[in-house]
């Protein structure tokens, strides 16, 4: 390998005004690149010279400060010259030249994507949401309610007296647990929903829907119903629906950046709310909120355990007016009736209460809260 001071390289120079190549010789002297030959004698400060990234094919090109180009078709000779004069590859280039580093980048990338999805995305969504006024929640929630109502919900057949009673009890319970308000206008809606079965769900902005099918399974247990509503109120207060939306939008933005096209994910907001499904974290937060509200109203968190039993049991009265006719074959319940019915009822609507089959962890949580 030649030593630094007298390393030279034969190359072509393009002056940017003519397409004619000038045969030149390159040398480095001090902090300057010297370009000599064909009537030219140019000096360029090394700092302002853009060296090429090393690649397998094609000529090497140095771009000078003024946009003119030095080209060398002999890549191997160029690389020797560059190394001799100390113009090594940048860290980025060295990383991508080595397969080991590339592999490391792949692994790191996967780890980053996973970590970003698990922690970064929720944190970012929460930060973004801090700048979104509550009025937006309401508009989004109202829009989602209308589209959901048109394909899933029917008018309620619950006696008006019971509706009124539940409303007032819920309002009183909220006032007792959150004396300073919950930040959203909570609107309780009763609906028959044969396709959702015994269920309840919350939308951004304060709409909470509870199905007739659920109320029919809890005829005399308004305390249990209160537990359900408290859980849904937790989703509203923590703005889970909006967080889900923002997360989906951020995710869309990130993937479109990586794969190169922008699509308007927000346009699909109503459909998204229904289908994404709350995460386990969201369910846990909402459960905590439910426990807090129940305790503030002197109701034992054990009512939620009663609830899980009620919604996973087949209807007690066969031949009920608006019973669950399609799903949950009670006869073939040999394996696990709980799972079968939960899956049959909730597969099509992600955020509905029973879409996450109540697992032992959640039941244990309510039991522990009751024991405290």
């Amino acid at each position, binding site marked *: 390998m030649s030593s630094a001071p007298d390393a030279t390289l034969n190359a072509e120079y393009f002056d*940017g005004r003519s397409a*004619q190549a000038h045969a030149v010789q390159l040398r480095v002297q001090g902090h300057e690149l010297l370009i000599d030959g064909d009537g030219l004698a140019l000096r360029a400060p090394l700092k302002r010279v853009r060296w090429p990234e090393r*690649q397998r094919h094609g000529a090497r090109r140095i771009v000078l400060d003024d946009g003119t180009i030095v080209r060398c078709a002999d890549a191997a000779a160029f690389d020797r010259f560059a190394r001799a004069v100390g113009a090594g590859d940048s860290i980025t280039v060295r990383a991508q030249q080595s397969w080991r580093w590339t592999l490391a980048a792949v692994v790191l990338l996967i780890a980053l994507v996973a970590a970003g999805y698990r922690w970064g995305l929720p944190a970012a969504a929460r930060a973004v949401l801090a700048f979104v006024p509550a009025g937006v929640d309401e508009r989004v929630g109202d*829009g989602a309610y209308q589209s959901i109502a048109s394909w899933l919900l029917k008018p309620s057949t619950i006696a008006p007296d019971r509706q009124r009673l539940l409303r007032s009890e819920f309002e009183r319970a909220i006032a007792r647990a959150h004396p300073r308000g919950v930040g959203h206008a909570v609107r309780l809606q009763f609906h028959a929903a044969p396709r959702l079965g015994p269920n309840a769900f919350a939308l951004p902005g304060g709409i909470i829907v509870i199905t007739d099918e659920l109320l029919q399974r809890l005829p005399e247990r308004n305390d249990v119903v209160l537990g359900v509503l408290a859980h849904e109120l937790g989703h509203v207060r923590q703005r889970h629906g909006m967080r889900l939306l923002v997360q989906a939008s951020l995710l869309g933005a990130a993937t479109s950046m990586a794969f190169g096209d922008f699509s*308007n994910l927000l*346009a699909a907001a109503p459909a998204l709310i229904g289908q994404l499904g709350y995460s386990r974290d969201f369910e846990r937060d909402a459960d905590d909120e439910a426990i807090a509200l129940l305790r503030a109203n002197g109701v034992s968190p054990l009512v939620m355990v009663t609830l899980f039993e009620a919604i996973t049991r087949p209807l007690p009265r066969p031949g009920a007016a608006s019973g669950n006719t399609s799903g949950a074959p009670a006869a073939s319940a040999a394996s696990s009736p709980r799972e079968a019915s939960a899956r049959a009822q909730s597969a099509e609507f992600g955020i509905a209460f029973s879409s996450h089959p109540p697992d032992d962890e959640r039941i244990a949580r309510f039991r522990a809260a009751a024991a405290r």
Partner: protein
Amino acid sequence: MSEDATITPDGTATVEAPAAAAPAAPPGGYRLAMRFSGSGSEYFRIWIVNLLLILVTVGLYYPFAKVRRLRYFYGNTQLGGEEFDFHGSPWKMLRGFLLMAAFAGAYALATNASPWAALVALVAFAAIWPALFRASLQFRLANTSWRGLRFQFLGTTADAYRAMWPMLLAMFMYLGAAAFVQPKGQAAAGEPPAAMVVIMLVGLVLVMLLMPWFWYSIKRYQHGNYALGPMRTELRAKAGSFYGVFLKAAGLALLCMVPMIIVAIGGSVLAAILGSGKSKGAGPVIGFVLFGGAMVLSYVVMLVVAGAFVTSRLQNLVWGSTRGRDVKFASALKARALAKLTAKNWLLTVLTLGLYIPFARVAKAKLLIEAVEVTTRHPPQVLTAALRGMGGDAAGDAAGDLLGFDVGL
């Protein structure tokens, strides 16, 4: 550096007549082949490092990644044995990128706030789109060099508006009315206003009817304003040729659906017959699976075949009718080859969960680029340019990303 300057100050530099010493030009002119020497495995490493850095910097590395990608692709694209180079400054592009990101965010917010806000955003967007389009081309061309000469895009903003306004109007009718017909987040307002539905439908029909003309108009604007030194191009195609390509593509798409529909119907009939004899539940399920599978498959086949057809025919049409006083282009891209490659690229991209993307991009670039050939009347060395260093506006380049258009090739 000043010994060979035969330049006029106004930028209309001249090609020096072939000197007496030069041999007589070959009868067909000088044929310059396009070659692409990029390699999938090499670009994979650039791509993965770029992706990583973009993620680590929460997106801010994007312009730098883009510059490295363009330098790689340009540096591996040879015309007559000489590579292209990209000179855009990533720092300038970062500014443009941030500007456009803010704009896109504001637009997304506005479209979701209310129909009126969406309408205002749409008008604003339509109003600046042609200007952004022009800025994007100007930046890209001004920062692309070959043999040390910078390209130029000479199209004016006024011409950009002239080329685009009919389509913008039609799209505005459709999207603007649609914002009122399907109000998001509005209280239940009953039936959408009938006038809006009519405007929306008229807009939609217009958009579809105008699409080929729009392509023609945009391509004429683009290809009529490329310049390298004294060479300037123009597009000598007719709008009718574009309608021909799009009509044939529509026919091809329909043709793709026919065998699949037959398979689907036959499958469900067969399943129904089988199902009636045997256990009761299986028949409809098999029919449904066959039908659904056939539909999905036919859709994918349609996208691949019709997409490859349109891409190849348009490239051949556009470049085949692009010429200047001393230069002409030709493109011989085969739809069949492109369809095969696209099918392979999609399949492998899905199977590798996206890791095949860089290989797919390189393979596609090679096929598209090497189909093109350039013929010049004078040897390319004698080209001279007057002005240098018109950088263009970096915001324009980011706008090109946002709107999803590229110089093509």
